[in-house]
């Protein structure tokens, strides 16, 4: 594997994660619990899709085959996607979406803080811009954790169930492979083990302040860095890629 190939895979992974997370959030459009939150969730979706566009555009350049960001988003199959397993999980109820957004935002907050110092200028630039957005996502999701956790018996139960269900997908966020190791030496990629401690501390604080029990670290799902996914990604792609698959290269 050359440095160029490793960088391509690394940037692709960051882009895929934002794309799939953005798509899942966009599923809330017109279905939010109140109009205000409907807009808030779709704003988060747009932030993610904007980030995906920037990253996939850069990935396409690195790939050097004349592809565009749209080719990468709409013309790859399930096994060629490297988004985190957590991002592809169905939206579930509102508590599940909030719990998922909180865990992902906390992870991204530390990830992009570190990546804003990347030796790769494009990654560092995208990370610095993303960091502003992610700080807001994290605050928004954290505040909702407080409200649901300390709200009614039902809202607490729903948030607790969501955290329990999501916990086994947290391990996948921190897995590293050969690309990470190769690029970390060059100060381009980051050591995810280093941000794991920060993630654990902040997530535990938020959950404790929300009256939510912290689950035991048991069995952890794995696979996204190898392109192995849950059964849910295929369904996301079916909907997301429908137009390009049915009418290749359609323009309007």
């Amino acid at each position: 594997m050359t440095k160029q190939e490793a960088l391509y895979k690394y940037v692709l992974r960051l882009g895929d994660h934002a794309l799939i997370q953005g798509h899942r959030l966009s599923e809330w459009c017109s279905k939010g619990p109140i109009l205000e939150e409907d807009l808030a969730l779709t704003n988060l979706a747009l932030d993610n899709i904007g980030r995906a566009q920037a990253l996939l555009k850069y990935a396409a350049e690195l790939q050097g085959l004349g592809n565009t960001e749209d080719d990468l988003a709409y013309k790859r199959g399930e096994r060629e996607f490297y988004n985190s397993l957590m991002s592809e999980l169905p939206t579930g109820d509102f508590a599940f979406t909030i719990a998922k957004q909180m865990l992902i935002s906390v992870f991204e907050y530390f990830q992009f803080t570190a990546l804003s110092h990347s030796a790769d200028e494009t990654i560092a630039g995208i990370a610095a811009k993303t960091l502003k957005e992610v700080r807001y996502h994290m605050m928004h999701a954290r505040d909702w954790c407080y409200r649901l956790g300390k709200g009614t018996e039902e809202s607490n139960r729903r948030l607790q169930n969501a955290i329990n269900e999501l916990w086994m997908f947290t391990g996948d966020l921190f897995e590293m492979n050969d690309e990470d190791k190769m690029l970390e030496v060059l100060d381009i990629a980051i050591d995810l083990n280093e941000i794991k401690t920060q993630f654990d501390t902040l997530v535990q604080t938020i959950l404790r302040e929300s009256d939510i029990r912290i689950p035991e670290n048991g069995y952890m799902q794995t696979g996204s860095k190898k392109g192995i996914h849950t059964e849910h990604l295929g369904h996301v792609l079916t909907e997301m890629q429908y137009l390009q698959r049915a009418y290749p290269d359609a323009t309007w």
Partner: protein
Amino acid sequence: MDTQLDLWEVFIQSKAGSHHVHAGSVHASDEAMALQNARDIYTRRNEGSSLWVVPAKYITASSSADADMLFDPANDKIYRHPTFYIMPEGAKQI
């Protein structure tokens, strides 16, 4: 039952130094949510640099029935407008 949470009025300052101008309202259960909802609804297209949110119940409004009494007497007091001054040369506004 009203399930829409409390009503808050939103004021946006478009740039530092200018007034906060009423933009509309949002529903929210607390101050933090009111600010976030206002940000998400009213500043999506670069409209603002600062936000105020005020619980709508704290705004006292004049009654439309009193509009004649309150505002009509000002109609014929043209001398209250500073239009009788000669603009100093070079001044854009006074």
